[in-house]
């Protein structure tokens, strides 16, 4: 029996490679065909689409990591994650436009940032009242207060501070809305998540403004970048380099955290079996809070990158919805609950949205598919769920009786 299945496995090992190579072949053929009918679709056109796809895919991957981590641990689709992303963008925006802040405001913001920072120190020391954590918190509080009250923050400082702010927001959401519902029916938790998302959307309207906001921190990276591709010049911005770089750094840091630290090990144990992990002495509530903290921090990083990429952020009521739901689709495509799956799914979705539209551009005889690209994520997700619910690289999540 086992021999049969193993030979079957060995027989089909070439199948993914064949599909991948076939797809690449088709894409290359399509590119040459397009070039042959219109020289505007040259190497630079496709290289531009490629780098933009990778950039957008990295953003989706960052957001998708938050969804996939939370789903892996407590089996909850955290609808509010897209709104956490929105809050991250607005926090960063206010941090780099309104600084230097008045002292009382600076103290309040610094308190929030410090709390997030102490949570991070907590990963290492394991207790919020540990002397080192308290000392680090005090130091951070003084530094952040002085920094906020005296200088204008650059994009990196604003991003880091906004990551801490949203991290605290994520932990608060978990504590206030989700923790009282542990063990409740999953539909109740999902409805609560929708309510939190709706709350944050309208809180955004109330507290921020309900209009598009320009998002242009002074930075070298938003400047133009041009290089030669096959004799044609490609005009783009340095963001196509920065976004994948930031994503790579954060993903590597997250992977190191999950694989190399005690809390990361506890996280993996909780994802496998929360009950048993609790019996083995894992503080499951702390693990869940950590998950929300990390996921929300990644969302804020993605939000700042998003704003810098597109130069503006949308109205708070709708800014988080589409990126959020698309990133969730990316997590499902990659295989929900798996970290590499979220990254693969995100990048794949980026290519689906940008490169596929470049492969079917507007020509004289064809209207193009750019208008439909917002629906690709949904279609891909529904197809993946119907064909292979565990995703591309996912554990089998089929429900047992």
């Amino acid at each position: 029996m086992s021999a049969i299945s193993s030979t079957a496995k060995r027989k089909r090992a070439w199948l993914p490679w064949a599909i991948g190579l076939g797809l690449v072949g088709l894409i290359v053929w399509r590119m040459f065909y397009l070039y042959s009918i219109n020289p505007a679709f040259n190497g630079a056109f496709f290289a531009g689409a490629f780098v933009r796809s990778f950039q957008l895919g990295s953003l989706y991957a960052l957001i998708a990591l938050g969804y996939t981590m939370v789903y892996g641990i407590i089996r909850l689709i955290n609808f509010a994650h897209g709104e956490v992303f929105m809050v991250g963008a607005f926090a960063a925006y206010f941090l780099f436009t309104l600084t230097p802040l008045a002292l009382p405001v600076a103290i309040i913001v610094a308190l929030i940032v410090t709390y997030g920072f102490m949570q991070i120190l907590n990963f290492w020391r394991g207790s919020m009242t540990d002397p080192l954590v308290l000392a680090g918190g005090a130091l951070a509080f003084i530094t952040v207060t002085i920094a906020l009250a005296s200088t204008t923050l650059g994009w990196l400082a604003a991003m880091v501070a906004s990551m801490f702010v949203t991290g605290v927001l994520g932990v608060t959401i978990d504590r206030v809305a989700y923790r009282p519902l542990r063990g409740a029916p999953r539909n109740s938790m999902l409805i609560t998540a929708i309510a939190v998302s709706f709350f944050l959307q309208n809180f955004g309207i109330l507290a921020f403004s309900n209009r598009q906001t320009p998002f242009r921190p002074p930075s070298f990276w938003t400047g133009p970048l041009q290089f030669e591709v096959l004799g044609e010049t490609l005009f783009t911005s340095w963001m196509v380099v920065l976004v994948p770089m930031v994503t790579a750094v954060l993903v590597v840091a997250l992977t190191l955290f999950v694989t190399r630290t005690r809390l990361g090990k506890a996280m993996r144990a909780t994802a496998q079996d929360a009950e048993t992990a609790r019996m083995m002495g894992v503080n499951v509530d702390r693990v869940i809070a950590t998950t929300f903290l990390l996921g929300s921090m990644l969302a804020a990083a993605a939000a700042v990158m998003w704003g810098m990429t597109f130069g503006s952020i949308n109205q708070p009521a709708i800014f988080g919805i589409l990126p959020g739901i698309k990133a969730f689709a990316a997590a499902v495509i990659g295989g929900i609950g798996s970290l590499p799956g979220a990254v693969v799914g995100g990048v794949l979705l980026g290519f689906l949205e940008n490169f596929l539209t470049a492969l079917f551009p507007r020509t004289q005889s064809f209207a193009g598919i750019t208008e439909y690209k917002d629906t690709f994520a949904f279609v891909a997700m529904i197809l993946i769920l119907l064909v292979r619910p565990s995703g591309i690289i996912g554990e089998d999540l089929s429900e047992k009786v």
Partner: protein
Amino acid sequence: MSASKGPAPQGAPAKAATLSPAEAGYKPHYLLNRSRNTLLTLAGLALVAVILFFVDSSGGTKMQQVFALFAIWGIATVSLNLVNGVTGILSLGHHGFMLIGGYVTGLLILPQAARDNLSASARSSLSDFAIGLSVENWMRALGLDFLATPETLWARFLIAVFIGGLMAALFGIVVGFPSLRLRGDYLAIVTFAFGEAIRLLASTPMMASFTNGALGFAGVPSEFGKSVWWTFGLLSIAVFVMARLKYSSYGRALQGIREDEIAAEAMGVHTAYHKVLAFAISAFFAGVAGGLWVSWVGTARLDLFLFFLTFYFLVAISVGGTGSITGALIGTALVVWVRQYGDPLEQSYPLSTWVLALGCVLLAVALIAFLVRRHKRLKPVTGPVVLGPLVLGVLAVGFGLFGTEMTALQQSWQGFGMRAITLAILLIAIMILRPAGVMGRKEFSWAMLFRERLDEPTDEERRQDAWLSNAALAASLAGDDEEEDADENGGAV
């Protein structure tokens, strides 16, 4: 406000093991006080009619619009309740079904003048074919000229709403198919994706020749959506169908799927058929509600069909009680009330007032958390969940009361979005504190109103229970229970 329903048969007759129910003097509760209940139902319906008459004769006031909106959203809520509450599938794509019903209805009854405007407009992307789509034209083509006159607009509206509902039901079947393979939150997210995809597709060039893109079309006759008679008439049809369905064999199959899908399948329920059926019926009424909603507003626009609609219906169901039609209507009344009379929440107040209000909310949260923790005997009773809101709340109240001199707190701030925030907080609180909602799964009945205990066992049943649960008693009574039964029987009859 809800259209009162007659007492519906619910629950099986009590178990009478040895005697038939009639012999034991037992009457099922729906036979108790039957004439009184019928009279009360008629009186209730008459009362509703009188209220509607007064609302209608007040003529174009806000009250009329609120009543009509309640009925329209009530149809949608009751239909969402069929999928979410009765079948137990969390469906989040209801705004998509309403969009289909709304656009189809709007396009089919659009008056000729509005069509001429649209075809003359340079910005319109409606195709000539779409502009020609009208029930009026069809009636002329069929030779039914008396149905194409302005006096018989109501008949055309009915036809258009029916076709809109059917189109929505078609999409409901399409959305229902993933439910055969997916469960739980995966299915919820797929229905959500469908709902959003319908809206996104409606603005693409493919569908813009029918939907006019993001502009939509104005000039839909609003005399139906704003009339309480039309809306409440359709609402009563929807409630009647849903109530009959709930207690039919189909409804019981759907409730079986909610409780345990595998067990239901093992008992012979064709789960695939029933789930798709639930989606189709629910989508049909959502389409009808969408048609009325477009008529209520007077235009068909894409921003009428955002996710907030489904969210409001979800709030209504959750507050009222998931699975209860009465509860869905109570919840709708609350949601419509907050939405239509919540303007004071969204006005401009000085910041100190807002801070004071925030402080009061935080103090309330602290109090509730304290009570809950004490009730659950959690230790320490004053955990961070109590102390955090308490400290922040006291600070906020202090600033609100005594900080009125601070210039920073004297600026005024407009509370955009406060109504939605209120509803969201309400939903979170309901989910945490009382997940079953106000009504639970119960329905309104007169017996419930008069606090008649329908499940109170008769003396005979009490005796049998004691007999069954007490082995010693069972042994001692084993010989003489026949004559005791006879005595009891004689006494009861």
